[in-house]
């Protein structure tokens, strides 16, 4: 007799998350700029431009809060503020989530508000839609953003269209740990934003910093629309900063200029913000040359800040971790060509992942993901154009 081997996703996950949680792998250097181009000292918690591989959650006394801890704080504070907020997802209760984002929340808020689900993304997404139509404000966790494809129909046809069709608000946040950089392979590393950007009715948020993760998540929870919240799992424990205040809220639809200059605009979001800042710090006389615009939200898009920067610099580099074809860079390019064509002094260039799945093996993945050298090279070519 063969002993049946349970073949759940959790097995696969345990291998990966143990890697991840131990943080013993070699991360790609995620660095922050320095000097003038250091946009906020808060992005720069440790010496040098490389975070220690064993960075852990801060203690309660610590003034520095990780990106992950910032997300948990936002959840906790919003749940304390509004009894309608509840959490739905796989392994978020007793386990506290595959990444431990929701650790301790079930103990505080009980099983009625931190609800563990079977592996049924479509089912619990639909569940959240129904609950939100009644005025609850569910925050749905997808264990990895990759698995959101299982709920694609519920998100794009039910959640996104219910207000348009019926006039009923659907206040849900879909938290999706996104992106690569930890050898997660093709099913644990994807950027899923472009599955959803073309769907009217959704808002799409991609925080790059810990304070944004907190402030944007709070805004997302208070928003009356379905919001896709793409938290970058590579940032979870790598960046720390001080939180501004107890009720730190960052509005959706406002970009942040992380570093200012007048010769080149870099448009980016998510973890790539840090790669771009690193690249800028590598440029000679980088100070005062480059605008790095962190979009923060893809929908709604802060067109004003983008166009203002483009009109100032006349040159544009767009950087994202997603694949090239059909990536958000194409949409940004179209916007700029339509609305600021006369201001351009050169071609719009893109640095993105190539059009392949995210491969597993370290050298393959390292090649796949855009890095600071790629960005610096593209920036130089545009500056010299």
């Amino acid at each position, binding site marked *: 007799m063969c002993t049946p081997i349970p073949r759940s996703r959790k097995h696969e996950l345990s291998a990966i998350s143990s890697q991840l949680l131990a943080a013993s792998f070699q991360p790609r250097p995620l660095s922050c700029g320095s000097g003038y181009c250091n946009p906020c000292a808060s992005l720069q918690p440790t010496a040098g431009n490389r975070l220690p591989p064993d960075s852990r959650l801060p203690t309660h006394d610590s003034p520095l809060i990780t990106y992950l801890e910032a997300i948990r704080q936002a959840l906790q504070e919003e749940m304390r503020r509004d009894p309608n907020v*509840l959490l739905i997802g796989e392994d978020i209760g007793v386990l506290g989530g595959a990444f431990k984002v929701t650790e301790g929340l079930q103990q505080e808020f009980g099983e*009625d508000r931190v*609800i563990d*689900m*079977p592996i*049924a993304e*479509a*089912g*619990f*997404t*639909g*569940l*959240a*839609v*129904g*609950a*939100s*139509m*009644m*005025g*609850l404000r*569910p925050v749905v966790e997808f264990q990895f953003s990759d698995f959101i494809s299982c709920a694609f*129909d*519920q998100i794009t*046809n*039910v959640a996104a269209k*219910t*207000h*348009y*069709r*019926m*006039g*009923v*608000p*659907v*206040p849900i946040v879909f938290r999706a740990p996104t992106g690569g950089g930890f050898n997660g392979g093709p099913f644990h590393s994807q950027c899923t934003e472009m599955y959803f950007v073309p769907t*009217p*009715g959704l*808002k799409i948020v991609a925080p790059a910093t810990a304070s944004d993760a907190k402030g944007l998540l709070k805004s997302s929870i208070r*928003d*009356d*629309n379905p919001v896709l919240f793409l938290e970058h799992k590579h940032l979870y424990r790598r960046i720390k900063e001080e939180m501004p205040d107890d009720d730190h809220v960052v509005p959706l639809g406002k970009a942040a200029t992380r570093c200012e200059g007048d010769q080149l605009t870099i448009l980016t979001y998510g973890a790539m913000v840090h790669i771009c800042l690193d690249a800028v710090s590598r440029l000679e006389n980088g100070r005062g040359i480059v605008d790095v615009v962190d979009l923060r939200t893809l929908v709604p898009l802060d067109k004003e800040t983008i166009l203002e920067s483009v009109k100032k610099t006349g040159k544009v580099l767009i950087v994202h971790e997603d694949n090239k074809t059909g990536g958000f860079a194409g949409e940004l390019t179209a916007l700029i060509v339509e609305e600021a064509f006369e201001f351009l002094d050169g071609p719009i260039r893109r640095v993105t992942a190539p059009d392949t799945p995210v491969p597993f093996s370290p050298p393959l993945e390292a090649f796949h993901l855009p890095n600071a050298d790629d960005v610096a090279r593209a920036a130089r070519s545009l500056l010299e154009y």
Partner: protein
Amino acid sequence: MLGATHSEMSEPPAPLSLAALETLTRMLYHMKLHRAIEDRLEVVYRQGKLAGPVFVGRGQEAIGVASATLLGQGDVIFPSHRDLGAFLVRGMKTESVFLQYFGRRDGPMRGRDGNMHMGDWKLGIGAFVSHMADTIPVAAGVALAFKVRRQENVVLCYFGDGASSRGDWHEGLNIAAIMRLPVVYLCVNNQYAYSTPLDKQMAVASVAERAAGYGMPVESVDGNDAMAVYSSTQRAIARARGGEGPSFIECWTYRMTGHGSHDDASYVPDAFFEEGKKKDPIRRFSELLQDSDVISGAEAAAMDERILVEVEEGLRKGEAGALPEGPEGLLGVYADSEESKA
């Protein structure tokens, strides 16, 4: 009561209360109105006046009407595309149905969606989504809100046999059962998914067999027998309100049309239609009420007259309603849009 056979009755039944008589008469009225509206819609469709197709529930009227009749204030339904009777029972007006089909601004979906994709949240009616079974987990979510808020309300969720092959159906039933949510799943099993008969949809003999696997009480009833549907739903609703979780009712019926007004259903054997005709739910229920002295033949005829007038009036208002202007389609995508603030 009325659903019982003579052999089951040891004593003559007690006289029906006035409220029961009123309920039964109203059920017949809604079943007839359901059919009359759709009969008229098909004519209007053939006249080329509608922008889209018509989907009717001819022969299935007992299910939506008998089940929704049991609901009270604050309860919610998620009907499917052949459950017009349930809409009417819950307060959707005849003219609203025509406004909807004509794509008028004042229709329930304001022209943004057509035909049976209509809802009205003020009436507790969720709008059908074409992707079959999408509302199965959504109905569970509404029931979750009832449970969280300790409300004794229930959700009725309708779908066809075809929907039970989709993943969302299975995921939704499973979650509702695990969480013991107050929702009743009503399968309108009309034995066809468009052109595909049951034996090509599932290897088991019934949808109930699928549902039973998720751990909820399951009943199979003659969906063309209004009282059978009523009794079964009554039990299920009592369980839901009593905190015993979801139930599943399979209502066997006959689709007496094609999939939509564009489909001649040539793939359906004649015997199927003959069988369905013999079991016509409206004729059976009308005879039952007349045999039981709930209404007289003259009253039934008067009801038909009244319904014809109501349908013509609804059609007139529906057709006369204003069409939306093209740019109105830009409104309402987001809940914080200008329209919502108004």
